[in-house]
């Protein structure tokens, strides 16, 4: 244990007061080490989820069944790359470089959302991801727009604004299938059956088992508990499923008058833990593809860096600073 210097205590008091007053912590403010590392962990995981999350949907870009759908899907996958970039940018304000975070992703030292380890087997999965996965993500993300760390909150505002079309396009896609031919309807129902439970797992373990929740709530990085958000999501989805003409695969789903919420059946946390451990259907493929893209792109990044360095040397030589003679 190190002794805490008086100025440290004073800084901590300023930090606590700022958070308590619902003001934002900004990059150069003093902050507790644990706050910083907790944020880096969360923002990095979020950024990784965006870029790994491109893969299951990109899987269908070349097979999209109409040109309109193809344009929508391409724009959506592009947004996910953009959102990853906004989030890496937020993490950099904490001193965590993007290359370093990508290294941690590629070597498995940092995680991404387990949901992306499930495969997209049919076109309807693109719709189910938009409706359920993006829906769950938005439920999680909207409170993050008020997160105590300024750059993260600002990135989330931008992300949420852009993502509003993501969920809608998914819902519209499923609605078209549900009202289409029998084969299309069956495709939509099958996708919802497969994506429903993994979507509920996206909110993380139950509150009494969540390792980081309590501290994150105190720091106002998180605003609501996992179980609260999960319940909110179920309540939103039930009437939406009905309007789609599709059912949710849970026999225990029923309205609870007393609670004013929908009751739902037990979640298979064993599956969640297995996927988290790396034993999901696509863990290997997802990380493998990401690593491959990064490795195969190394010569491109090196070329651009070498070109920039040469240009800078030439400019210095022209300016006569002697820089070029080093």
């Amino acid at each position, binding site marked *: 244990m190190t002794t805490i210097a008086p100025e440290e205590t004073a800084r901590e008091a300023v930090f606590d007061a700022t958070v308590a007053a619902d003001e934002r912590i900004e990059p150069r403010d003093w902050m507790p*080490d644990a706050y910083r590392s907790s944020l880096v962990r969360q923002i990095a995981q979020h950024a990784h989820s965006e870029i790994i999350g491109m893969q299951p949907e990109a899987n269908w870009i070349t097979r999209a069944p109409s040109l309109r759908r193809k344009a929508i899907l391409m724009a959506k996958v592009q947004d996910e790359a953009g959102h990853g970039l906004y989030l890496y940018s937020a993490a950099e*304000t904490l001193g965590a470089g993007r290359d370093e975070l990508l290294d941690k992703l590629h070597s498995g030292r940092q995680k991404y959302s387990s949901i992306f380890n499930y495969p997209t087997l049919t076109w309807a999965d693109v719709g189910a991801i938009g409706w359920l996965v993006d829906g769950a993500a938005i439920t999680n993300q909207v409170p993050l727009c008020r997160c105590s760390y300024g750059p993260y909150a600002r990135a989330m505002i931008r992300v949420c604004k*852009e993502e509003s079309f993501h969920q809608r396009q998914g819902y519209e896609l499923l609605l078209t299938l549900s009202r289409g031919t029998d084969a299309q309807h069956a495709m939509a129902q099958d996708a919802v059956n497969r994506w429903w439970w993994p979507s509920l797992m996206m909110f993380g373990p139950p509150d009494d088992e969540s390792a980081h929740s309590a501290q994150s709530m105190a720091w106002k990085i998180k605003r609501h508990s996992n179980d609260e958000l999960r319940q909110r999501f179920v309540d939103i989805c039930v009437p939406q499923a009905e309007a789609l003409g599709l059912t949710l695969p849970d026999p225990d789903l029923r309205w609870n008058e007393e609670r004013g919420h929908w009751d739902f059946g037990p979640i298979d946390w064993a599956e969640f833990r297995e996927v988290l451990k790396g034993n999901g259907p696509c863990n290997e493929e997802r990380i493998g593809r990401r690593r491959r893209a990064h490795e195969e792109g190394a010569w491109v990044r090196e070329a651009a860096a070498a070109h920039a360095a040469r240009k800078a040397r030439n400019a210095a030589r022209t300016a006569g600073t002697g820089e070029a003679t080093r």
Partner: protein
Amino acid sequence: MTTARPSGTSTPSAAAASPADTGAGAAPHPADWPLWEVFVRSRRGLSHTHAGSLHAPDAEMALRNARDLYTRRSEGVSLWVVPSAQITASSPDEKDEFFEPAGDKPYRHPTFYEIPEGVHHL
């Protein structure tokens, strides 16, 4: 002030971060591109506003990447990119010296002055 990076400076926040989180001291890989801050003018008549950052090998590519990343929904009519390392920021620890002295000079604001009722265009 929000744009300044702790890395590469000797600010207390950088010093307080654990090396594991900041990568402090790690030599940049030859393929690592520097960080640029992006400022967007959303329409004529407004100032450029900080939008975020990105990586690019040089200024030309930074500008193009900024166009693709930060204005793909028609958010801008003009862009600036600035190497993050080139920004000098005030330190939060100096905020009292920097900003408090301005707080007790209300005579710089028009609301400080009382004007009789019925006087217009003032």
